[in-house]
């Protein structure tokens, strides 16, 4: 295939894409309007299932299978990172030296840690009621744990973060989502169907399976981010290969 021919194919593809994209955009509802055909239907379906946060209703009920896919992508990519960033046979671990932390950083970090942790847990727990949910809250919880590294030092972080339980929690969160979906099959409906009682609107237990799936995602994401950052921290602070033996400090 000559260069000229390839450029022709590229130009043809770009032109076709531009034409189709323009045609598709012309049919879109106007920007910033009050009504949206999909929005109206999603809100209606969410209210039928007593779920106050429509976004969560879309994520964990109307499009629960898409969320299973996203959760599995995160799970698989963290698994890949764990394998890639493992300690190989020609590398060894060194203990990083504790370094002094400025008083202000320490005070701010220790003050922010419990607040951040509480906000994260709140966001996970209220996913079906207010903006947020398992993913957002899970990341906040994982970030809160790492404030310990900033405020104190790496060894303090390692003490509250035994990796084994977090790896198990990561897998358990993923499994809980899959099994809750299978519960729909057992109840005679479809996979991931919302088969539980919907409860009272705008209470913590409302939404049927939405809070359960939301909690499963929260556990999975929090554990996955902790495991992911642990691998990065291990490579950056502890693991040394043969080539960087010349450097002493951690």
């Amino acid at each position, binding site marked *: 295939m000559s260069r000229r021919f390839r450029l022709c194919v590229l130009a043809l593809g770009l032109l076709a894409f531009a034409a189709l994209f323009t045609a598709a955009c012309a049919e879109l509802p106007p920007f910033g309007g009050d009504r949206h055909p999909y929005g109206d239907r999603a809100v209606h379906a969410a209210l039928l299932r007593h779920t106050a946060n429509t*976004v969560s209703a879309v994520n964990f009920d109307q499009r629960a299978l898409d969320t299973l896919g996203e959760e599995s992508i995160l799970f698989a990519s963290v698994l890949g990172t764990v394998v890639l960033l493992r300690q190989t046979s020609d590398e060894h671990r060194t203990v990083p030296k504790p370094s002094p932390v400025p008083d202000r950083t320490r005070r701010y970090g220790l003050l922010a840690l419990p607040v951040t942790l509480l906000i994260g847990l709140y966001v996970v727990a209220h996913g079906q009621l207010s*903006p*947020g949910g398992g993913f*957002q809250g899970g990341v906040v919880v994982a970030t809160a744990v790492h404030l310990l590294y900033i405020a104190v030092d790496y060894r303090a972080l390692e003490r509250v973060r035994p990796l084994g339980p977090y790896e198990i929690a990561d897998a358990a969160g993923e499994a809980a989502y899959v099994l809750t979906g299978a519960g729909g099959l057992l109840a005679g409906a479809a996979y991931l169907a919302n088969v539980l009682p919907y409860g009272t609107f705008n209470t913590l237990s409302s939404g049927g399976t939405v809070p359960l799936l939301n909690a499963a995602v929260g556990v999975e994401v929090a554990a996955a981010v902790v495991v992911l*950052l642990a691998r990065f921290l291990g490579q950056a602070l502890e693991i040394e290969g043969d*080539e*960087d033996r*010349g*450097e002493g400090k951690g």
Partner: protein
Amino acid sequence: MDDVLGGLALLFVAAAATAAVLNRDPARQALVLSLLGLGLAVLFTVLQAPDVGLSQLAVGSAITPLMILLTVRKVRRIGRGRQAEDDGKGRSR
């Protein structure tokens, strides 16, 4: 009011994104990316997508810059180690 805030957020996002591209030092890029994440979170919230704003705030302005900084640290450690070895043995790898 929302229009003004949205416009300001859009301008800030455009400026921060351009700065992130033009900056060549990865450690500084991480900081700029963090600011970009903050700007995007404000923009999403103004556009009435607080769920996406929260995700953006947590991932874009905290986790991603942290991962970049840790990677930079690791790469620099390897670089320094090689330098020391080259100086010590007088040969190149």
